[in-house]
C-alpha cells in the first residue's frame, strides 16, 4: 500500500533519525537506573539525563533544576494544575483557563471542580485569541492559577502569553501554559514570557512518545507543586518513578535540534503553509480558521463549505490530515475549538487541519493542494447544499429535519 502524505504533525511527529541514534545506546549498554548512585551503570545513565536536562533548559531559557520529566504533556498538565491547586489551597481555589484548551487541561479543571475548585472558562474571540480585558475582569483575590495554552493544536493561534502572564502576576496568581505545540517550533523563553509552569512533550518535536516536561519556576517566585504520585521522590520530589532514560535522552536531542534549526525551519514551513493555504483559500467558499497573524508556522485550518469533513477525508485518503468533524459517533459532535470561534456547526464539520513538519516537502504540498481541490470538487458535485447555494437558496431559511 502506498503511504499517504503525512500532514498531521500536530497529532504527532516522526522520530528524527538523529534522535533515534542518540537514544539507542541507552536501551542496551547504557541501561542503568539514573537513580543508582553506587555504580557506573547508574552514573552513565544519570549523565545522559543531566545532559538532556541541559539541552531542554537551553531551548526554553531556564535552568536544569527547573525541569521535571514526565510521561508526556498530559501528565505535566495534570501535575501542574492539580499540584498547584493542592499546594496553594490556603491562598485560594480559583483557576482561570479558556474553552479552547486541550482536554488534558479542561478535564483536569473539571476534576478539580468536584474537589472544591472554582474554575472560570474564558471564551475566545472569533480569531481564537482570548480577550485580555475579560481575563483581567475574571481575576479575583482567590485566583491562584491562570492556565492558557501557548499555541492551539487545532488552529495554531498563539495566545498573547506575555500579556497574560503580566495580568496573572499583577493579581498574585501563577501563570501556567500548555506549550506542547509551540516549544521547538517558535522561540519560547520562560523568563521573557513570564511563565511559571509549562508543559510540553517530546513527540510533537521529532522526539519519542512517552516523555514530556513540566517546567517549574524556582526563582521569582519559587513555585511548588504537590506530587500526584507517591514513590521514590524523583525529580525533586515532584514526580516519582524511575526515569525513562532513553526517552529523556531523545527529548534532549530533539530539543537541541529544534533550537539549532528553528529559524530556518520555521521560515521554510511557513512559506509552504502559506502556499497551501493561499491556493486552497482561492477556492470558492473556503475559509481559513483562526488568527493568521499570531500563529504557529506549520498549521493551516481551512473549512470548505458545503462538503462534510469526514467524507472529505475519505476522498483525500492520499493525505493523512485531521478533520474538525468527529462524525464517528451518532452524536456527530464537531470540534469544540472551532465552535468556540463562533463557527456554525456546518462550517466546523467542513474543516480540515493540515499540520506540516520537518519532513514535509514542497512536492508533497503541491500534491496536497491537488488532492484537496479534486476532493472538494468531487464532493460538491454530490452535495445538495452546494447545488442549493448555487441556485441562490438561503440554507439558513430551510427547516431542516434534525435527527
Amino acid at each position, binding site marked *: 500500500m502506498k503511504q499517504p502524505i503525512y500532514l498531521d504533525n500536530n497529532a504527532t511527529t516522526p522520530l528524527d533519525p538523529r534522535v533515534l541514534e542518540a537514544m539507542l545506546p541507552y536501551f542496551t549498554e547504557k541501561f542503568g537506573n539514573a537513580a543508582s548512585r553506587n555504580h557506573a551503570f547508574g552514573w552513565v545513565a544519570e549523565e545522559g539525563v543531566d545532559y538532556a536536562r541541559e539541552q531542554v533548559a537551553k531551548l526554553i531559557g531556564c535552568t536544569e533544576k527547573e525541569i521535571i520529566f514526565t510521561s508526556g504533556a498530559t501528565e505535566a498538565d495534570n501535575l501542574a494544575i492539580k499540584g498547584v491547586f493542592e499546594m496553594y489551597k490556603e491562598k485560594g481555589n480559583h483557576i482561570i483557563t479558556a474553552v479552547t484548551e486541550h482536554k488534558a487541561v479542561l478535564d483536569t479543571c473539571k476534576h478539580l471542580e468536584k474537589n472544591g475548585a472554582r474554575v472560570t472558562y474564558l471564551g475566545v474571540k472569533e480569531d481564537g485569541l482570548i480577550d485580555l480585558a475579560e481575563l483581567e475582569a475574571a481575576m479575583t483575590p482567590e485566583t491562584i492559577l491562570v492556565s492558557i495554552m501557548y499555541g492551539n493544536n487545532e488552529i495554531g493561534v498563539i495566545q498573547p502569553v506575555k500579556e497574560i502572564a503580566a495580568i496573572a502576576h499583577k493579581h498574585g496568581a501563577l501563570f501556567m501554559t500548555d506549550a506542547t505545540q509551540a516549544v521547538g517550533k517558535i522561540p519560547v523563553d520562560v523568563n521573557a514570557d513570564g511563565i511559571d509552569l509549562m508543559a510540553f512533550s517530546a513527540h510533537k518535536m521529532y522526539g519519542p512518545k512517552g516523555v514530556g516536561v513540566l517546567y517549574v519556576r524556582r526563582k521569582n517566585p519559587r513555585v511548588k507543586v504537590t506530587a500526584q504520585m507517591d514513590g521514590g521522590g524523583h525529580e525533586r520530589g515532584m514526580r516519582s518513578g524511575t526515569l525513562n532514560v532513553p526517552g529523556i535522552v531523545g527529548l534532549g536531542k530533539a530539543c537541541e535540534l529544534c533550537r539549532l534549526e528553528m529559524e530556518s525551519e520555521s521560515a521554510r514551513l511557513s512559506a509552504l503553509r502559506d502556499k497551501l493555504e493561499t491556493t486552497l483559500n482561492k477556492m470558492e467558499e473556503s475559509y481559513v480558521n483562526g488568527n493568521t497573524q499570531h500563529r504557529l508556522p506549520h498549521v493551516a485550518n481551512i473549512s470548505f463549505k458545503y462538503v*462534510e469533513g469526514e*467524507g472529505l477525508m*475519505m476522498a483525500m485518503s492520499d493525505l493523512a490530515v485531521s478533520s474538525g468533524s468527529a462524525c464517528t459517533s*451518532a452524536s456527530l459532535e464537531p470540534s469544540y475549538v472551532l465552535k468556540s470561534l463562533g463557527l*456554525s456547526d*456546518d462550517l466546523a464539520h467542513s474543516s480540515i487541519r493540515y499540520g506540516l513538519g520537518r519532513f514535509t516537502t514542497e512536492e508533497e504540498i503541491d500534491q496536497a493542494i491537488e488532492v484537496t481541490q479534486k476532493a472538494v470538487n468531487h464532493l460538491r458535485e*454530490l452535495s*445538495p447544499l452546494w447545488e442549493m447555494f448555487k441556485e441562490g437558496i438561503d440554507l439558513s431559511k430551510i427547516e431542516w*429535519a434534525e435527527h
Partner: protein
Amino acid sequence: MAYSEKVIDHYNNPRNVGTLNKDSKFVGTGLVGAPECGDVMRLQIEVGEDNVITDAKFKTFGCGSAIASSSLATEWLKGKTIDEALSIDNMDIVEELALPPVKIHCSVLAEDAIKSAINDYRVKNGLEAIVLEKSHH
C-alpha cells in the same frame, strides 16, 4: 475507520447522482437530515405507469457511509413499485454495505429519504401521506 469495499465503491463511483425536476408531478423529492448534524440527503424518484419507479437520483452531503447509503438506495429503487420501495428497511442497507454500528444512522437517513420522497409524490398526486413510524435510530 476502515470502510467496507462496497462503501468505497459507491463513494468513488456514486450511482445516479443528479437532480430531477422537483416541480414535475411525476417526481417525488425527499430532503432529510440537517447541515448541523453533518449529513443531508436529497433523494428523488420519478414514477411512471403502474406506480413503477422509472428513475432515481440523489445528492448527499455527508460522510462516506451516508453517500454510499443513498447511492445504493437509488439503485434499489429503480424498477420497484412504490409499495415495494416502502418495504426497504434501513437494516437491508446496513447489511449490504457492512456498515459499522456508528454508521447505522446513515442507513436510517436513507430510509427516511425514500419514504419522504414517496410521500412528496403521493401528496402531489392527491393521495394521503403515509404516516411513518419513527425509524429505529
